[in-house]
């Protein structure tokens, strides 16, 4: 049950912040989708929107935290260059993966995609949280705005899902220790 500092940060990055966003996405998307004036009373809509606002800002903060802990805390350990003459690369995940042709693609495709696409998620999630907060209950009557918000939110989810999926696979192949 023991984990070192690096492993704890990796868990915080992926299994806390990233997971919160992935877990919360479908509920939030449905909440925005179902925000339709014909389905809700004005009072009901106000209450629903208040909850959705908190929920969306929570998800946006969580995904910002996921990318910052990932890029600025965990990633330096992943990409650290081993000292000259190191033969045991198990604590240098990037070098470990690149040393073998059968695992190199985990870095060259998986990690390269993950580390870049992930940054689209907090940007898109923040936009979604802002637009829903700005319009409030009025969003129920704005079909185009709701559609745009949902597309941004789905892209945020895709970016997070790619990052999360490759994060899990790469950790299986070469964990940050």
């Amino acid at each position: 049950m023991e984990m070192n500092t690096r492993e704890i940060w990796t868990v915080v990055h992926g299994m806390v912040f990233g997971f919160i966003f992935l877990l919360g996405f479908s509920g939030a998307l449905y909440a925005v989708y179902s925000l339709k004036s014909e389905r809700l009373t004005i009072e009901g809509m106000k209450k629903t929107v208040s909850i959705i606002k908190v929920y969306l800002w929570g998800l946006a903060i969580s995904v910002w935290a996921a990318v910052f802990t990932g890029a600025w805390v965990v990633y330096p350990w992943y990409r650290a260059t081993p000292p000259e003459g190191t033969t045991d690369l198990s604590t240098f995940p990037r070098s470990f993966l690149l040393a073998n042709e059968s695992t190199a693609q985990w870095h060259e495709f998986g990690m390269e995609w993950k580390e870049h696409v992930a940054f689209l998620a907090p940007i898109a999630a923040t936009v979604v949280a802002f637009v829903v907060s700005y319009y409030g209950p009025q969003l129920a009557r704005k079909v185009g705005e709701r559609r745009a918000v949902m597309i941004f939110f789905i892209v945020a989810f895709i970016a997070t899902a790619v990052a999360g999926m490759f994060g899990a696979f790469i950790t299986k192949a070469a964990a940050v220790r």
Partner: protein
Amino acid sequence: MAKEMNDKVNGPAAAALLAGGIGSAAMGLITLIYELDDKSGFSKSMTWYKPVGGLSGKSSWAIIIFFVSWAILHFVWKDKDTNFARVSSLAIALLFVGLIGTFPPVWHLLKGS
């Protein structure tokens, strides 16, 4: 109640969406330019923090561009109604530029490798 449900101008929402698109496209394009020649002066200038490497500059620029463009667009459009369909279509297109630019096979395709 009727007053509360009066239509708000769409400028602030349009500004946020377009800024999101611009920030995403910035991430995609900066990443693409970097990956096409990671030895260039531009690519070297992306290393803001050595342990994080080029990702430090690429991601920081994208975030700065997102927030600065949002602030500017919000200031310009805060009291205005924009052509929302056009602005949101552009924002979504830019969002997809971000997705394409961060996809490694696209770098390899353009590099011819």
